[in-house]
């Protein structure tokens, strides 16, 4: 029989706390099964009693793209061939990034009963949110394939660039999710604030419109919007264009700096999260 020893000590120096936080992250990755199953169960729970299950997401997304696409292509005076792929990819990728942040607000609140009864590492619940949204994204990707087939650019999709781009985007929204998750647990009115902020960002980010139509001044504004870069590295390859290297660099820098900051924050407050609940 293997002996397991758990040792818990009082708050130490910041260096000790950082070590503790790192251990908690490592443990959360080692216990991957738990958050994978919890994420799967979240999806199942959402669509229990429904006939086509998670493909409702696909269907509603498809209807949305079709409806908005037909009207907005007229408004923007673009052909549906140009506009619908832009819109479909934009909306679905935005959905992936935004919902990790929005649901990130509830990371710990949603799992409160488990956190208050067990010693499962806290990052597990962040991974639960991320995994859940990646699964939903995979269902929505069906729409992207159909659109690509219909408009005939399926074989031009640069899948590897897209995968790298999505991974980079998700790594970035994951640290944001951790930060808002902690803040929203402490301050219960923050989810609304984050919600409004994300809504505004939706309009500031070229989700529904083509960034190429932006004037130089607007383009300068776009370049400081992290979500613009997340869309750039994911939508372009999915539409068969080679993405700009600039956006990759921005995202890599942001991922490193963001995770360092988020981790430092987590190390400082992780002991208190259970008391916030």
């Amino acid at each position, binding site marked *: 029989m293997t002996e397991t020893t758990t040792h*818990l000590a*009082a708050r130490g120096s910041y260096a000790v706390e950082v070590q503790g936080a790192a251990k908690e992250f490592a443990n959360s990755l080692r216990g991957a099964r738990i958050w994978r199953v919890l994420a799967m169960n979240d999806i199942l*729970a959402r669509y*229990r009693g429904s006939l086509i299950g998670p493909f409702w997401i696909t269907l509603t997304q498809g209807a949305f793209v079709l409806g908005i696409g037909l009207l907005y292509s007229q408004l923007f005076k673009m052909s549906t061939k140009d506009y619908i792929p832009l819109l479909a990819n934009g909306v679905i990728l935005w959905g992936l990034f935004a919902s990790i942040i929005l649901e990130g607000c509830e990371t710990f609140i949603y799992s409160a009963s488990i956190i208050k009864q*067990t*010693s499962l590492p806290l990052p597990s619940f962040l991974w639960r949110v991320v995994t859940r949204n990646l699964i939903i994204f995979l269902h929505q990707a069906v729409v992207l394939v159909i659109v690509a087939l219909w408009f005939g650019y399926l074989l031009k999709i640069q899948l590897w660039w897209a995968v790298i781009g999505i991974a980079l985007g998700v790594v970035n929204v994951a640290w944001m999710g951790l930060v808002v998750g902690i803040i929203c647990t402490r*301050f219960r009115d923050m989810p609304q604030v984050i919600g409004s902020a994300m809504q505004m960002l939706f309009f500031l980010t070229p989700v529904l419109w083509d960034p190429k139509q932006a004037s130089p001044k607007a383009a300068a504004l776009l370049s400081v919007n992290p979500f613009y870069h997340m869309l750039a590295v994911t939508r372009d390859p999915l539409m068969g264009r080679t993405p700009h290297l600039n956006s990759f660099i921005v995202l890599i820098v942001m991922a490193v700096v963001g995770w360092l900051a988020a981790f430092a924050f987590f190390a400082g407050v992780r002991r208190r999260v259970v*008391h916030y609940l």
Partner: protein
Amino acid sequence: MASIDVRGLTIQFPVYGADTRSIKRHFTRIAVGGMLGRRKGSSLPVVVALQNISLSLKSGDRLGLIGFNGAGKTTLLRALAGVYTPDEGTVTVTGRIASLLDVGVGMDMFATGYENIRLRGLIAGLSDKQIKAKVDEIAAFSGLGSYLAMPLKAYSSGMQGRLAFAVATSIECDVLLMDEWLSVGDVNFRAQAQARLMSLVNQSSIVVLASHDPTLVKTLCNKFIVLDGGHASEVYDVELMDDVYSGVVGGVGSLLPQPVAAE
């Protein structure tokens, strides 16, 4: 060898009340209360749930925790389970820990009985293989038969209790933490449940049981401590139970831990 070693354990609950939980209040407090001086949250009330507890248990020990509501029994159990980290002192536990603090933890009303067995098992730290090996036994013990393929919401609350109990008590552990003796089900089930719980207790190297029932502690435990307002008595032999308990109940002691502002 299982062991529990608690040294100088203090646990405090900062009370994030309705008014301190809003970020607006937080900022106005900073603004009104004179910038940095109050930033550390000096006006945040703190409940000292446990104060300077030391405790050492080895294999074969069965410890009863006695005390009134708010004395710190559940907090101590949760600290042993690793839910709370100490504010002072250390907690070291060797061996697999199982806590029966809330048998319903992680149950999903909309998932089927079988799915719940899996979810619960995972949260308790079992592998898929271990869960698979236990499913039949859990199903048989719960006596729910074909109900297990149905969502939990179709169960009566008694049936839900039976399933939760069957899953929670199916674990093998070295250190068993219990908050009150579990009692579920109808007359027939209750006897089986008692036997199962007893065998779980007997299998565990160390048992810590919080209870208001002195007779239960006397039958199950060989040692006990009295918690009072977050302070622990020395560890008594269970034979002293009657004397101490009448002293506690008769005495004026037993103050609830009073909230204090952190310095």
